[in-house]
């Protein structure tokens, strides 16, 4: 898309460009207004303790959102977030030092889990591309397969994680922030590099912007798609590790509600569901909007069950305001 803009610029009406530029900053403005309102209502919002709490809550949705961003950039969708996350968390709880068996793989266990996440993502990609099945159907299937595998492994029980390294991700702190937050920050940096400074990253935008053109320009679309799904799987598995560390256990219900927060964060951040527009830094803003809003609602005493509903409305509002309707005739 960056290659096309210098050519397009003279023809494009200036009013439209300004509107587009404003739209790109809208999520940031929403985030700042939100922070200001909550800070006025409840000054506790601005304390360092609350800031740490916000980053801690944001770490997991951010990691999941990064994975989903790669998929949504291509104009696809990944509904298997909860499946891969749950499966990873459960397998992790069985591989590291735990209360149910005698395994003690430590960090190696975490690496195996990342590989498993990548593998499930790879299967997603292969089914989607090779069998030509729309991604939302493929990943709807793997969503339930992942949760089913977790259930089959545990049969409704929970395994307590006693491994000090894994628990330490949530408990131990460095410069005031838990290690989990630093890992999420590192994941963000890695994702930004992949997105902006690799061929793969540019291909993602090209595919999302217009797949037929991408094919004609010689981009290996099938390979890029499969890689993107595998990469997303690794990020979901990382999210699973962080969730398991935070709760100190693995069970089959651990992922409930994560898909919803993830999609909300990506979409609210301004990544277009049509593909080709957005990025992981926007997802960071989207995650912060979702987390700050829920943090603010907790501070104001709104029950947490209301939040799903609010997120649902946010999805509709964000998608409705971001879709470029002139491009679409048929919406399915």
């Amino acid at each position, binding site marked *: 898309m960056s290659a096309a803009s210098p050519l397009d610029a003279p023809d494009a009406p200036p009013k439209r460009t300004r509107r587009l530029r404003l739209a790109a900053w809208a999520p940031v403005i929403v985030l700042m207004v939100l922070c200001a309102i909550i800070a006025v209502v409840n000054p506790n919002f601005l304390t360092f303790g609350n800031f740490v709490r916000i980053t801690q809550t944001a770490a997991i949705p951010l990691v999941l959102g990064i994975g989903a961003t790669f998929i949504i950039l291509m104009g696809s969708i990944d509904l298997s977030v909860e499946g891969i996350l749950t499966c990873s968390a459960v397998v992790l709880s069985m591989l590291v030092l735990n209360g149910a068996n005698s395994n003690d793989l430590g960090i190696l266990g975490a690496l195996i889990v990342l590989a498993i996440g990548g593998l499930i993502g790879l299967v997603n990609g292969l089914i989607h591309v090779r069998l030509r099945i729309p991604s939302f159907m493929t990943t709807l299937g793997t969503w339930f397969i992942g949760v089913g595998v977790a259930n089959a492994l545990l049969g409704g029980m929970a395994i307590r994680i006693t491994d000090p390294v894994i628990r330490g991700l949530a408990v131990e702190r460095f410069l005031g922030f838990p290690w989990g937050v630093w890992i999420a920050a590192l994941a963000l940096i890695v994702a930004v590099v992949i997105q902006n400074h690799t061929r793969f990253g540019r291909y993602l935008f090209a595919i999302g912007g217009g797949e037929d053109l991408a094919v004609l320009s010689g981009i290996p679309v099938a390979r890029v798609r499969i890689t993107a799904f595998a990469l997303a799987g690794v990020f979901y598995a990382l999210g699973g590790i962080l969730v398991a560390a935070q709760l100190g256990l693995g069970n089959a219900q651990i992922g409930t509600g994560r898909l919803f927060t993830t999609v909300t964060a990506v979409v609210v951040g301004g990544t277009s569901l049509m593909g080709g527009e957005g990025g992981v830094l926007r997802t960071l803003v989207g995650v912060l909007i979702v987390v700050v809003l829920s943090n603010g609602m907790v501070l104001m005493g709104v*029950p947490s069950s209301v939040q799903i509903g609010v997120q649902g409305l946010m999805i509709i509002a964000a998608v409705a305001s971001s879709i470029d309707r002139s491009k679409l005739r048929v919406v399915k």
Partner: protein
Amino acid sequence: MASFLRHIASDRVRQWLPLATLILLIVIVGTLEPVFLQPATLLDLAGDTAVLFILASGVTFVIMLGGIDLSLQSMASLSSVIVALTLPRLGYAAFPAAIAAGALAGLLAGLAHTRLRIPSFIATLAMGGVLASTALVSSGERSITLGADDRGYLGWITGTLAGIPNVVIIGLVVLVVAHILQAHTRFGRYSAAIGAGEPATYASGVKVNRQKVIAFVLSGGFAALAGIILTGRLASGSPTLAAEMLLPAIAAVVVGGTAITGGVGSIWRTLVGALIISVVRIGMTFLGVNIFAQNIVFGAVLVLAVAITIDRSKIPIVK
């Protein structure tokens, strides 16, 4: 693999594949477990299938147009909460109230989809969140068991007529109504046309958006009815009552042979699909497969069925 898929995807074979699968499954499960073929077990099977079938036939209307409804399990749960909360005060009026709520939710999802031009899977995912939240808040996040006097209102669901459970009869009524809507009304024909080719249908003057909204209203209403039946059978309402029903419902539609690309399908196929899902579930229970682990099979079956039924010529770019 791909050529094998293409072979069984050829129209002539494809049309009869679901029914053949169903018969084969019944024979297999019947051989392994002869109890299965006794009339009492089969009636139980029919009763258990009714809820799934009602949910699936609602979403069939949406899938026929090429859309999808991911909010049906939240709607069914919400409907069970509405019934459980209002039954003491409203009596029988609680049931139409729940169905009206379902239709309203479907209307809102349909309007969000058509007016705001949001893809249906995201509009209904979001609507599902709103509905789940509503159910959680209004029920106080717990399940509501119905008192003895309220259960008197549930006789039309739990009773039997000439030895046949009322649930089965309700299922049959839904089958007839849904079939008439799908096959003998203007709405049914238009929705098949929209699924087959939306731009052409639009160009021939059909009010595409109106048909889409009607489909979502029907899906919401049917989901609410399924929630009512569930409430009757369990004598309680809960905000997570139908949480596990989304995948089986969509799997039933697709396994029956309705293509998710739209245009091809019928309520009869959904009936066959729902029966397949039920027989598979019972077969797995006989084999001792954990009820939650069964989702592995349903997930795989869903993907496989989509792979066979999907019309790839309609989607040059698979996203």
